[in-house]
């Protein structure tokens, strides 16, 4: 039970509990905050899984920028104590959602538990690739820009469209 495992246990439990909290809280702001906690726990998990770059990235981009937007949105929509009504608006719906969630969970678990995981996950070709220490940033960058150059350009264009989209929406709102 090395330090590693202890941390691992703590933070995975933290992540799970904050996830559940996000779904179940009444107040939207609380949900947002819980989600931030969730993200941080995940970041730590990434570090534990030899992916410090991603952990930092997660914290910076995700927790930082995305959650800021969320809080902004909450502020702008002036939601606050909205959820007075019961969590689900009808028993049937809750039941249905529960069943679906359980089904999904069951299926995935059954998938995992089916074993043959290694066989499935270790594609024949992959074994030949040189296994590299994952926390070497240069390696990540190399795969990012050499092999994934095309995807990289695509993301560029995606971001461009996002900018344009936001501008279009903003423009209309500013005039209204």
């Amino acid at each position, binding site marked *: 039970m090395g330090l590693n495992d202890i941390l691992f246990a703590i933070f995975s439990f933290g992540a799970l509990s904050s996830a559940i909290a996000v779904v179940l809280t009444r107040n939207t702001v609380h949900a947002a905050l819980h989600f931030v906690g969730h993200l941080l726990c995940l970041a730590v998990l990434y570090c534990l899984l030899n992916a410090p770059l991603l952990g930092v990235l997660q914290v910076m981009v995700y927790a930082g920028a995305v959650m800021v937007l969320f809080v902004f949105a909450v502020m702008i929509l002036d939601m606050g104590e909205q959820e007075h009504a019961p969590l689900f608006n009808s028993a049937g*719906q809750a039941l*249905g*959602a529960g069943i*679906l969630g359980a*089904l*999904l969970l069951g*299926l*995935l678990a*059954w*998938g995992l538990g*089916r074993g*043959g995981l290694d*066989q*499935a996950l270790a*594609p*024949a070709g992959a074994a030949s690739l040189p296994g590299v220490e994952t926390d070497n940033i240069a390696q990540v960058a190399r795969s990012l820009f050499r092999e994934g150059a095309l995807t990289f350009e695509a993301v560029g264009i995606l971001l461009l469209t996002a900018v344009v989209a936001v501008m279009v929406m903003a423009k209309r709102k500013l005039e209204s």
Partner: protein
Amino acid sequence: MSPLYVVLFLPLIGAVINRLFGARLGKRASAGLACAAVLTAFAFAVSAFLGLSALAPAARSVVTPVYGFLTVGSFKIGFDLLLDPLSAVMICVVTGIGSLIHIYSVAYMEEEDDAEYARFFAYINFFVFSMLTLVLAANFMVIFTGWELVGVSSYLLIGYYRGKTSAADAGKKAFIVNRVGDLGFLLGIFIIMGVFGSLDFGVVLPHAALLGAGSGLATATALLLFMGAMGKSAQGPLYVWLPDAMEGPTPVSALIHAATMVTAGVFLVARCHAIFELSPTAMGVVAWIGGLTALYAATIAMVQADIKRVLAYSTVSQLGYMVMGVGLGAYTAGFFHLLTHAFFKALLFLGAGSVMHALHGELDMHKMGGLRKKMPITHITFVIGACCLAGVPLTSGFFSKDEILYMAIAGPHASLCLWVVGYLGACCTAFYSGRLVFQIFYGKPRDHHAYDHAHESAWPMALPLVVLAVGSLAVGLLGLPKFASSWQPFSDWLAPVFADVKTAPEADGGSLVYWLMLLYTATVAFLGWLSYQWFAKENPKPTALAARWNGLYRLLWNKYYVDEFYQLVFVRAFLGYSRWLWRWVDQGIIDGAVNAVGGFAQHLGALLRERVQNGQTRQYAAFLMAGVCLLLGLVFIYGGGR
């Protein structure tokens, strides 16, 4: 190109041209065309007849194929024509009398407009064509085709006066009743095909024994064929359509319902005599039905007021005699009566037609009388016809009818009571033919207005009357009784056809024949005198007699209420059944099913719109999720690692 092609197809061509271009041709041309077609057909028929007689008696059956109709594996049917003594006589009768009637109807149908005129001639030509097909048939398929064509043309001709609903109904009635008969005929054909594997007369008739002499199958086949004959020749229960068929124009009644079509049934029985010979029971049934119909129809004929109805019932009864003759195995006698009857009955009908023409459509005998002076030719010819019908000695009717009655006693399947029935029928016949003559032509004119108008009809109507009168007398000489003359042209002519029939021991009946002849002469004389007394002079007796036996009189007058009975039993039951069928089966099941499908689709659509696509984003998410689960499940079940 044997003459038969011309005989058969010329009337058809005439009919087609008349029907298609009739209106434009004008009366003269269309009438001319039609008569020319039938006359040339008659000429060729006679030449075919002579050609056949040139052959040796045994070889007198020539099959000429026209068109290979159907070959299914080993089973082959061709549209072939068979010329043998029997059909030779028939084609001459059909075309001969047909042409006379064509000439007669040129004048008779004068007042119709061009289109209707041409239509009439087209139909009559078509009828001659179909009758020839029937007569010249070489196998059961062709004879059945002829059978149906004749049925259609009789329907068309009966319903000629389209305006009159009664004519249309009579047409329908004739067609439907014939169909009932045809059903039996068809079943018979199926059995024959099943047993023999072929329909050609050449194959079936010589090997008729295959059916098993006297076996149930033979009787069944014979009776089924006879059912067809009954339908067509108005015998037994299926006679009802003939009296109503008088709705058609008189030449039609003369041609179809006297001379040719109605004899088709007798022709069929004569043609398939080999099958009938096999089962005595069938023969007995045929004979008895013939006899009973003869007596039954004769009794009705005695009281009818309308000339054409009287003649119609007399035709039914005379046909009864022919069927009785054929049923007794006396095919030659039966056929001879057919021949003579064709002549004098056509004569009587045409006579009635000219009387009607003269009195502008007046048919009721009670309004006539004393036309003797006004219409001399019609009068004389009508008297000759009536004498033949009654069986006055030395006339053709006498020889042919008494030959049948003689066969009833001395024939192979003789039975005394059948003779009695026949004899009673003969008495009635004599009585009503006398009544016909005296009520129309003698005594004082009852309806002066009509009487003044009466005039002798034009030459195209009078000529056929004279020819037919001479013909009906001359024909009688062909079949003189054995003892009278050794010269037996008619039976010699038909001998080869009926060679295989166990002919009656003719010779020894000499003395019996004398006595019979004497008896018939006496009865005819007495009944002639009686009818003269009652009808020529204004004698109250008949009305008194009718009053006293009123019940019987009314029964006869209403034709034993047969029509009403049929109406009640068959027609109403059938209508009820079809109405039920329509309401439950059709509406309920079929329409129901269709509506159900339609309704279901509609509900499904509404349901989908309502439940599924209702804008609830979360519902969409749920479906999405369900989809994911499904895919995952599939992947795990079927996919799995490499």
